């Protein structure tokens, strides 16, 4: 932990990133002006409900936003390279080598017609100048590393269980020692016991290799388990960001509060869940003011006229909520020590 704190240089810096999908009759604002930094060895968690723009943000980092999407940014800098200025051959070198990505569903993220060993070796040979025999040997090492016996390298994905497939996907992603690993809901398709195995494996590999990681998830439990910093996303914006302790114990944003309130409480099992009322706004027709205002119980007239300004509680803890301009405002959720 001490070593990781001492490295302050961000490996990944994003400023004012926006992604729009321009269709014939509407424009969908998937991501709006978000900025964040990721330090070496740290893990940043993106939390938010479906459609909050988490995956689109991750795809924008790899410049993989699908066709009608338009990416605008002041800066997307990864390991000192500006991603938006890369040519397509530079991009091919950058993807997988500097930044690797793990996709949500391990059932469909492996090619069914090749053996898993071939697929890992393929990814190694793309980025490193090795012979196919060396790549094969490395692929077997990678399999052992993620806890799959090397003699199964010759098998096809359909012969593996879901958890093992996700470990193969992790092996492919880590085969070239990337600086940053983006994990897009890596455990959503797995059951909880396998989730625990996969998360522990990812933690171990991250610490062994001092990798930085971006963890995209719905689950606050996974964030608490694995992340150092958290960014809460809502309707394409980061509404609250800070260290794990700041966001979890000193929650400031009403939306984050709502997320915590909708979790069941193990100490009071008979208590009713308190879901956030309403639905997320239509991304093609976002409100002028705070996107969360229509669902927010603290919302006042000041919330609906303009985008809330960032309110900094510490160097790392930012909240985008206009209510903090009012004197003595505080949310209901008590602070924890």
């Amino acid at each position, binding site marked *: 932990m001490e070593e990781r704190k001492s490295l302050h240089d961000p490996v990944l810096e994003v400023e004012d990133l926006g992604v729009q999908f321009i269709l014939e009759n509407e424009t969908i604002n998937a991501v709006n002006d978000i900025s964040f930094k990721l330090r070496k060895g740290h893990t940043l968690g993106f939390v938010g409900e479906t459609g909050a723009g988490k995956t689109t943000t991750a795809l924008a980092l*790899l410049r993989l936003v699908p066709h009608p999407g338009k990416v605008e940014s002041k800066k997307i800098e990864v390991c000192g390279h500006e991603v938006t200025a890369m040519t397509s051959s530079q991009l091919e070198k950058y993807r997988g080598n500097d930044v*690797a*990505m793990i996709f949500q569903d391990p059932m*469909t993220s492996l090619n069914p017609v090749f053996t898993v060993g071939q697929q890992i070796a393929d990814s190694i040979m*793309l980025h490193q100048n090795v012979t196919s025999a060396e790549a094969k040997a490395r692929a077997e090492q990678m399999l052992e590393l993620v806890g799959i016996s090397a003699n199964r390298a010759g098998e096809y994905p359909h012969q593996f269980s879901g958890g093992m497939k996700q470990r193969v996907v992790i092996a492919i992603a880590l085969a070239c020692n990337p600086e940053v690993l983006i994990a897009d809901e890596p455990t959503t398709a797995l059951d909880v016991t396998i989730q625990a195995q996969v998360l522990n494996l990812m933690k171990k590999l991250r610490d062994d290799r001092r990798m930085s990681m971006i963890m995209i998830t719905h689950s606050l439990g996974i964030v608490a388990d694995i992340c150092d910093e958290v960014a809460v996303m809502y309707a394409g914006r980061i509404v609250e960001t800070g260290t794990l302790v700041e966001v979890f114990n000193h929650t400031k944003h009403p939306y984050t509060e709502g997320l915590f309130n909708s979790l069941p409480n193990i100490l009071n099992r008979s208590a009713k869940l308190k879901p956030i009322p309403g639905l997320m706004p239509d991304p093609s027709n976002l409100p002028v003011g705070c996107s969360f205002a229509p669902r927010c119980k603290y919302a006042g007239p000041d919330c609906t006229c303009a985008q809330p300004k960032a309110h900094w509680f510490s160097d790392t803890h930012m909240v985008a909520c206009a209510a903090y301009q009012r004197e003595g405002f505080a949310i209901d959720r008590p602070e924890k020590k």
Partner: protein
Amino acid sequence: MSYRNETLQSQITGSKDIPIPKRYVRQTQTRIVLHNLSKNKGAMVGLFIIMVIVFIAIFADVLLDYETDVVGINISQRLLRPSWKHPCGTDDLGRDIFYRILYGARFSVSVGVVATTIGLGIGVIFGAIAGYYCGLAEDIIMRVNDIVSAVPSILMGIVIVSALGATTFNLMLAIGITSIPQFVRITRASVLSVRNQEYIEALYASGMSEPRIIAFHVLPNCLSPIIVQATLRIASAIIAASSLSFLGLGVPVPAPEWGSMLSMGRQYVRSASYLTIFPGLAILITVLSFNLLGDGLRDALDPKLKK
């Protein structure tokens, strides 16, 4: 980071001592398909006959002397009925029909295979482009494809062969070109379903270039319908070749192409029907075998029928 649960960790990292059964490692896709295919009696019969025909086609020159057995004219032996000496009789120039049919396998098989390869090669490339890159490229390819497939294939074949001249290669070319549209369509349909799979997106994320993804990852996933189509297409190419030869536009005489043998026997169809029956049977058996094999392959490659 320390682990609270040691057993969990050993599950993750220490699976070395669990023995893996050997048969598991060896069960590749090809083996499964071959196993399914071997259970289909019709397909195995078809495969056996095809192997015999291919064997005859390859060794026709060793088995027969082209100048004397196949094209050598022997007027004294003309129009003999089938007998032990001439199992299929002789034609109006005294040539043994049986030998000519054996030698003719060479033309039919080579035309079928080469024409299908031409159609397959061109069709798959354009089909993959059309399926993978939507938009203008797809529109142009598919509309041209519609135009080509609107022309009846025999007419198209006649046009191409008359324009280029009646040689064996031009016949292959003509039949190959007429089979392109089917391959374009079938490839495009499969590529469309594969290109949106998550593993293709994952390959982009691992930094693979687009042509490589298409060639090594998208196409192999589209292979099954293409293989089936190719097998069935060989059968129709053989029929097309025979039809064009029947019309005098195929393999030039006196080479013993089955279609042109039918055409020559036509004038004796009342008095010496064996001149047309046996070449016709040869075409029928060959085409039937390819169709049986194609049907069997289709069933074997269809995962829904897996038991």
